């Protein structure tokens, strides 16, 4: 089965933050962008915005760094998912992820990251300008992103 992936196209992003709202509502049940797994970064000088979240990278630094096997691969989506009842909140994954896309949530004492919403990512649905789309993995810049990661950070 062809895995799908989030395709992020910063040049189409208007900075409306609908994705952050959708993510936090889907994941946390409330509109609180600070709890969103996807973040829009702002480049004032250039007048640009860049949505960014976990690319579900093959190296899975977070998963390998976890001391208690609390991060696992969802075979259906390829997402690396945090098992909240197993996570002890040690935060080692948050420093191990070289993309900065695993965050600690002090309210729950657990870590949070993008899980592709089980295959229906709310951010992509909410994006009005198709800056975030959920497409066949091979068509995304994702392979490029992953190649970049593999090239620059040796997985030994």
């Amino acid at each position: 089965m062809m895995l799908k992936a989030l395709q992020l196209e910063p040049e189409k992003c208007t900075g409306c933050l609908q994705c952050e709202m959708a993510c936090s509502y889907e994941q946390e049940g409330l509109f609180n962008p600070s709890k969103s797994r996807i973040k829009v970064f702002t480049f004032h000088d250039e007048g640009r915005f860049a949505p960014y979240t976990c690319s579900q990278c093959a190296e899975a630094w977070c998963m390998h760094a976890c001391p208690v096997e609390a991060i696992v691969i969802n075979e259906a989506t390829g997402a690396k998912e945090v098992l909240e009842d197993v996570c002890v909140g040690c935060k080692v994954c948050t420093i191990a992820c070289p993309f900065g896309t695993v965050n600690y949530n002090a309210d729950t004492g657990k870590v949070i990251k993008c899980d592709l919403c089980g295959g229906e990512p709310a951010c992509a649905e909410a994006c009005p300008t198709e800056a975030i789309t959920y497409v066949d993995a091979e068509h995304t810049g994702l392979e490029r992103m992953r190649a970049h990661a593999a090239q620059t950070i040796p997985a030994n």
Partner: protein
Amino acid sequence: MQHVVIGAGPSGLVAAETLRKLQPDAGITLIGDEPEPPYSRMAIPYYLIKQIEESGTFLRKTANHYDSLRIALKQGRVASVDRAAHRVALADGSTLGYDKLLIATGSRPVPPPIPGMDLDGVTSCWTLADARRIAATARPGARVVLMGAGFIGCIILEALARSGAELTVVEMGDRMVPRMMNDIAGGMIKDWCESRGVKVHTSMRVTAIEKQGDTLRVSLENGDVVDADLVVSATGVRPNIEFIADSGIETDHGVLVDRQMRTNDLDIYAAGDVAQGIDFSTGEYSVQAIQPTAVDHGQLAARNMAGLSGARHRGSVNMNVLDTLGLISSSFGLWMGDEGGESAELLNRERYRYLNLQFADDVLVGATSLGLTEHVGVLRGLIQTRTRLGVWKERLVKDPTRLMEAYLASTQALGFNAAVMA
């Protein structure tokens, strides 16, 4: 092919699993000297505060994990290695032959050289057995003295304080976590802990422990005596290398290895907290004793044991993350700075926010943070990719919090940064 892995911590276990992936038919034996299934010492604090059961510390959660991978778990302590005969001898007198051997025996606590360390109620916090003992004593209101406020000490500090104990910490360094935090960050962690009711002595030693009735009397070098129901020692650890002392395997502080995690014996490898592996930032071989490095080492050693060519270590970034009573701190790489390099700093003592970045030219080489939980891993990414920051270096000097923007603009095609390859 018979692989023997000594040590059932994360490094040994990951090595055994990696070997199975690479060599479906090899024999794999994983030897650990504790009675429990392989578990994580990292998770012990969460067991102490009863957030998890003992089973929550186990490295693998499915009951038949080892059987299904045909990894033979063996409980015992390896007493010696006979290189000529390709055989290890266990303390119970039995022997085990190997084609390739991995030493992943980790480290153990070193008690301070003071009288009273053998008294009842004085313990380290290293094994699950230690944790059970501590959990039984560290009840709300119990008086506890913690010796050592290094990384391990601080992890235990959190658990002891949260269990409601009346806690006194004694650290001989001039600040908390001296080998992970600079003086500003270490001082802020101390202030934070004290503001939450923990008594912290720095630049202070315990000189002796005595028992009077049920009470432990802990003498400090300034003449003070602190009464305690429990004394927990976390004054440092040392690699477990004694059993190879006569084997001819070369050691320094830990076992010496090359970039393939191989010792001076072609069939013997070392990984994890016992191994003196290469440090990404310094290029020197040192014992890092951190979870991500242990896993890196284990994978890499296994790939070389399985005969994969080109599996060479480019160095692990030293890094740590710590939670002291809700104040989260982390440090990476050359957090103490590089000679002649510049730095950027953001400090808000009232809000316990701190971010210190260290550069060599326009490359991030080290960082320290307090109170930062968002995107903190990008510090590792920027360091390990040796990303040239260009104009973003000056922007970070002005505002160190713009780390993610610096990373994205330097590595991803964003529509304006034509220099970044798409």
